[in-house]
């Protein structure tokens, strides 16, 4: 089965995010004053083969642990969906 795995890598809450602060300041300047907090992260999408969704999730988790995120400063979240056969 083909899967699309979408990984969101974000800075841990305890890590200061100067990019997020700058984006928030920009939004406030544009009048979006309702915004109280902004965090900037990364979105990584992977197309992959796996036998089961569980198997795919296990592999992507491994990828996150080994490369996609830095455990010192980053958290990650995985979303999986089955891709229609082409």
């Amino acid at each position, binding site marked *: 089965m083909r899967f699309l795995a979408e990984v969101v890598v974000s800075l841990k809450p*305890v*890590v*200061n995010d*100067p990019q997020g602060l700058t984006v928030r300041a920009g939004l406030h300047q544009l009048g979006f004053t309702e915004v109280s907090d902004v965090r900037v992260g990364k979105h990584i999408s992977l197309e992959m083969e796996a036998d089961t969704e569980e198997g795919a999730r296990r592999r992507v988790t491994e990828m996150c642990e080994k*490369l996609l995120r*830095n455990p*010192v400063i980053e958290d990650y979240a995985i979303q999986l969906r089955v891709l229609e056969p082409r």
Partner: protein
Amino acid sequence: MKFGIAVFPGTWSDRDCARAVEVLGHSSVYLWHRDRDLQGADCVILPGGFSYGDHLRTGAVARFAPLMDSVQEFAAAGGLVIGICNGFQILCEAHLLPGALTRNASLEFRCETTWLRVETAETPFTRECRAGEVLAIPISHGEGRYVADPETLDRLDAERRVAFRYVRPDGSPAGDASPNGSMRDIAGIVNETRNVLGMMPHPERAAEAVLGGEDGMRLFRSILGSVEEAGTFAPTVTPAAVGSAPAAPGRGPISDRGGPGRRAPARRVMKETVHNAAADGQGGGGPGPAGEPGGRRRRGAAPR
């Protein structure tokens, strides 16, 4: 002695490092990222730059280069490794040093002179310095904000593993003058066994008066002193290379080398290897300094 200077795609400070070694009067070889042979280097430098385009995270991809396997092995056996700028980022990604380097608090790429207070002279990299003295050494980075959890930071302080902190020119705490917002103003740290140093500032760019300062040479001289005094932990050195060199009197036997024990921890190889420029097949570079600590004078040039 011989320095090995790693070259990844995107490394940009390799030649600056080779020049600093030349000023020191010693030799260096470039170590290509796809190779595994450290070519008998007594100290490995991971220089600054943007290895693999800084893709994903700084240093994240370089960590998987074949050369890094050898560097890991070399470091585990006690070999001296210094990571400068991108090299520091690689060492953190490779878990040879704790913590991580993140975007500067200013979000700017900062290229300027910084003042570093030497926090400990008890490392092979700072032994020619005095604790508390201030060195002027430039930085050149966009992602140098050192981050670690509080336990790690406490441990670094307790074990006196912070080698350098950013300070004001008079040595007082950097405060708002921090160039990148590093936690506890950390500019450089060593590992538990003190044979691996990572630092964001570039000592090789403060290696000659014409560059604006020579404070960076204090580190290179420290490394030289460490290697020459104690011998080096050079696990990859070949018996032939050592055997061709004269043994200094009083340095003890040099039979404790060779054999398959490359992974043996902290196996001291007493080094008296003299790599001169001619033996390395290189033309002589510029003249070395007139007088060197230890009274030796050699010339060395890295391949161009």
